[in-house]
């Protein structure tokens, strides 16, 4: 991110900028998703208008909600393991922030450029499981415990197809670095036709589907929301949380939705880039500086598109049962993604 600015910035300044950028990258998608999809799209899908009072068309509703949550008492159940109970939301949030660290928004607009960014991303995303599990356990509530255990089972089960679906992309791009994956997609060609680049959604369509299904499950959105399951477990691991700790869970849920959508757009939709052939670029170094400004917008658009699908499914479907969900993961998704990897690898070597 430092390179965006022409002036030399001291190290502490760079760090500050990174932190600020990270906050924006977490909170902005979360706020947009909550307002656009949770408040407005869901309401419209249900023949109502949603919040209309706070701000024009209720656009400041989220601010009001945050204000409300901040005011509420920070309750902890009597028998709860207080330290862990209070820590749990932060653990989930940490996972979200670590995840955003590897996401590039432009040729130079990134927080860190890991060589194994994909690997890192998938690794830190599973920290949230820990947070959810300890939240469920520490609440000293049977519903929370059931929710936490379900979440652990589910998130671990769906971590696998998520990773395996990503592997297809990694094989095709021959890299685990997000920047290189983006470049590979935008410089590629479909049957010699270069104008669109080669977004991996075409070649890795099965991978994309598996990835999106697994993301849906990782985010515990319907139809995979049994860890939360309002009608059975009364919000599962979140049952006992109130005030700003609930707010943190809430933000983390939607921020993670946004970040997973960002990752999916990096892996399958060409990321921040436009097909390089449009501007006669050949490699990452050729890309003009203004892509650092346009890139985030492109990413935001793609993220909204993908979160729209995630939310659309969420508002339309009933949820699976726990055993059906596991069956689906282990008997359908994982074999399918293994087959996908095999075919990708064979084609990669053969072609």
């Amino acid at each position, binding site marked *: 991110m430092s390179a965006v600015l022409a002036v030399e910035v001291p190290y502490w300044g760079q760090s500050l900028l990174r932190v600020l950028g990270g906050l924006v990258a977490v909170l902005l998608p979360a706020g947009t998703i909550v307002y656009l999809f949770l408040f407005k799209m869901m309401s419209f899908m249900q023949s109502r208008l949603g919040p209309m009072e706070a701000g024009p068309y209720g656009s400041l509703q989220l601010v009001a909600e945050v204000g409300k949550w901040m005011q509420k008492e920070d309750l902890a159940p009597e028998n709860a393991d207080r330290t862990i109970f209070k820590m749990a939301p932060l653990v989930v949030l940490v996972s979200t922030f670590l995840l955003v660290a590897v996401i590039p928004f432009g040729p130079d607009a990134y927080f860190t450029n890991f060589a194994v960014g994909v690997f890192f991303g998938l690794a830190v995303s599973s920290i949230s499981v820990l947070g959810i599990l300890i939240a469920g356990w520490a609440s000293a509530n049977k519903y929370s415990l*059931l929710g936490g255990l379900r979440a652990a089972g589910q998130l671990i089960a769906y971590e696998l197809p998520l990773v395996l679906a990503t592997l297809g992309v990694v094989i095709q791009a021959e890299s685990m670095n997000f920047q290189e994956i983006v470049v590979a997609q935008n410089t590629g060609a479909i049957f010699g036709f270069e104008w669109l680049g080669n977004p991996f959604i075409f070649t890795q369509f099965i991978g994309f589907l598996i990835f999106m299904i697994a993301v849906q499950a990782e985010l515990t959105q319907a*139809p995979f929301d*049994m860890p939360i399951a*309002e009608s059975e477990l009364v919000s599962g691991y979140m049952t006992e949380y109130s005030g700003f700790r609930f707010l943190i869970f809430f933000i983390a849920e939607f921020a993670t939705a946004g970040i997973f959508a960002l990752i999916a757009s990096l892996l399958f939709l060409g990321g921040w880039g436009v097909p390089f052939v449009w501007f006669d670029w050949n490699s990452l170094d050729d890309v003009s500086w203004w892509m650092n400004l346009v890139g985030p917008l492109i990413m935001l658009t793609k993220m909204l598109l993908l979160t729209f699908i995630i939310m659309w499914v969420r508002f339309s479907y009933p*949820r*699976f049962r726990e055993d059906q969900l596991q069956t689906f993961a282990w008997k359908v998704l994982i074999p399918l993604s293994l087959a996908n990897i095999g075919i990708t690898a064979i084609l990669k070597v053969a072609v």
Partner: protein
Amino acid sequence: MTMLSDRQQLSYIASQAADARLNVELETEGMTLNIGPQHPATHGTLRIICRLDGEQVVWAEPSAGYMHRGYEKLTEVRTFPQVTTLINRIDWLGSFANEVPFILAAEKLMEIEAPPRAQVIRTILFELSRIANVSLFLGDLGVQMGAITPVFLAFRDREYVLNLIEGATGGRFHPNFDRIGGLKDDLPKGWIDETRQVMIKLQQFCDTIEDLLFGNEIFQSRMRGIGIIPADIAKSYGLSGANLRASGIDYDLRRDQELPMAWDKADWRVWTHPDGDSFARCWVRLQETRESCKIVEQLLDQIPAGPIMTKVPRIIKVPEGEAWVATENPLGEMGYYVVSKGDLGPFRVKIRSASFNNISVVPWALKGVYVPDVITILASLYFILGDIDR
């Protein structure tokens, strides 16, 4: 226990095994989970005590009574016209249907009958309250399984029906429109045309729910083969309404008994389903909503001209005697056993509400299922708290 499905047998064996495991030392202890009294899935204050082994229910028992209002006692200090106000509130989603059997029982004791016009209007309002009730069930079904959209669509379309009921009777939820000997008032002008349009909307609503929910593969995998209640169990627990018909028993009080109502003037059919599972119960209700729309549409053309009230004395004293009248209410068979001693008020009223029997099968039906299935089975049995506790 004949005709059990393989799954039911398996889960029963599993629950027996779980029972046995509980008694072995050094094994994990079971967990007692209180579902309710404040729980979103019980839409009211029903409490279900479940003994769990993992997520499997070993033993479950509903604990009702959080809403007991003592209507049977209260009716004894009220006059006959005052009782309708109370019994309105038994099944509060289909209030008008609650009034009808009581009024019919009183009329039977007095040996009078409502005039034909009143009979047809009664039947129309009866079916409208069924539609209002069951359409909410259809939407609520989604919420129980995590689909939040159907319930809003149900609330939207039920509103049209409630507006009709309010337009005719003045009360959205508690019409109190039935009188001994007829109805309180005639229909307001324009009501029939409005009803026709609303019936079209409600039939579209049924199609929407079928597309959105019943056709959904996830929904089907959650409902089919779950909570199977065989016919003999259903009869011995006294299930009624759609719960009974979903077990393959072709019995509908609207068709199978003679009452001074107008159901026989319309052409409709009784739906049954052979499976007896959760899906069958919900599916039968969906079809019944459509049939109700058809009944209303047909009866709207057949409202005869005439009075809506027969001659009844101003002070109603019901002659001595006992009468039992039951009708096919939205939730099932609802009946009143009215004992009169010739006074202004009834001597004793036994209220046989459908949900009380329907929910008493729960300990049997929940044995060996998973926690998520507890919710779907409860939802598919469909109860209204006021109808259990009275």
